[in-house]
């Protein structure tokens, strides 16, 4: 065993987790006895593990794992410390520009809509059309659809195939953000009807979506048991 193998195979953490084979364990123990500096890495990893255990036991870990709103992210705090005055000035300018741009009544903040015309940009105009994505069950895949988000706000057309055809054929689509093992509802739209090919069209404002995992559920409004759920992943 050598240094490269230890790094590449995350041997230190797996040793502490007692997940090495007998041969790997013996080889690693022989290595760190010969290389005392490795003990510091063992201690660092042990503290990382023990600290996480403690945070879990005290209930802090759950909140640490939740996505943070942009204004609470550590990098912004760091910037604020260094460039506090500049950031404040930039924020005032930004708010002023936003208010000026929004002299006209505008939408929207809306994630999902039954028609593309319902999704509006900052000037109250419909968003430009983006890609069209077909969502249907793909067995054996952990994610049913990967969607690359455009750089600017666009309307993404989603075509969703329900697994159960309902009568009457009126559907509700709900989008959930995946947060660890929890789902948080972020948008829902009702009264959707399928096209001739049985796919249900629904439209999404790309600017509302963050990178990450989501679940999209479709169900008949009269029959919640008909619900189908699809795994989506958005990336940039």
């Amino acid at each position, binding site marked *: 065993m050598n240094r490269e193998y230890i790094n590449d195979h*995350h041997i230190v*953490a797996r*040793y*502490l*987790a*007692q*997940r090495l084979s007998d041969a790997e364990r013996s080889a690693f*123990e022989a290595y*760190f*006895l*010969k*290389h*005392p500096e*490795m*003990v*510091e*890495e*063992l*201690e*660092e*990893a*042990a*503290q*990382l*593990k*023990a*600290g*996480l*255990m*403690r*945070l*879990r*036991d*005290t209930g*802090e*870990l759950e909140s*640490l*794992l*939740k*996505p*943070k709103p942009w204004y609470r*992210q*550590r*990098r912004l705090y760091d910037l604020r410390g260094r460039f506090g005055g500049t950031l404040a000035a930039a924020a005032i300018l930004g708010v002023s520009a936003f208010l000026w741009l929004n002299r006209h009544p505008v939408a929207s903040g809306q994630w999902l809509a039954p028609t593309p015309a319902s999704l509006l940009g900052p000037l109250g105009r419909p968003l430009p059309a983006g890609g069209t994505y077909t969502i249907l069950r793909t067995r054996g895949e*952990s*994610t049913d659809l*990967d969607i690359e988000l455009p750089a600017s706000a666009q309307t993404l057309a989603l075509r969703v195939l329900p697994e159960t055809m309902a009568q009457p054929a009126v559907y509700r689509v709900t989008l959930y953000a995946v*947060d*660890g093992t929890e789902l948080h509802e972020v948008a829902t739209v009702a009264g959707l009807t399928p096209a001739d090919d049985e796919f249900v069209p629904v439209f999404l404002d790309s600017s509302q979506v963050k*990178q*990450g*995992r989501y679940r999209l559920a479709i169900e008949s409004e009269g029959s919640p048991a008909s619900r189908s759920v699809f795994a989506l*992943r958005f990336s940039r």
Partner: protein
Amino acid sequence: MDLQQTHETSVIRDTAGDEDRTRLDALISSNYPGLRSLIFRTVRDRALAHDLLNEAVVIACEHYRSGRIAQRDRIAGYVYQVAMNLLRNYRRKLSEREDRRAGLQALELLAATDIDYERLESQIAARVRDIVEDLPTARDREIVTRFYLDEDEKETICLDLGLTHLHFDKVIHRARKRMKSLLEAQGFRKGDFFAVLLSLFG
């Protein structure tokens, strides 16, 4: 190796007086806080965790004195090796005796009654909180948690989260690097631990 004391180590332990034992405890706390805390969080029995680590140090010293460990700077690694063996044996036995595992309530009660231990664990938790908060995305935080806490394998995590191995390695490297720099900033180094330790046992 077993948790049962051997005759040899009993003799060594008996030669250390209360004052020496106190010094030994302090040395273990200051030089092996991670190992100590990890063992405690695993066995969930403070007295047992304490005995187990103490035993590992005593055995390492004995082996050094008897010549089984040729160089003094290898003792630190030897302590880790012995402690992990003792822990592995303990886990094996525990699977046969569920009644020995203390519940979370008992664990927190112990934490509340041992101020020194509580302080040590709080410091470790504060470092780890800082590391987790510093990771830029919820997914990166999930990677670190699943790898170090849930002990999931890299392949499983990558498959579940749709990650490349390269991204996984970057996130883990970042967390490790951050822990290293935090410890270095607080002056954590093995130092002359073993010189002092050996003086305890002659």
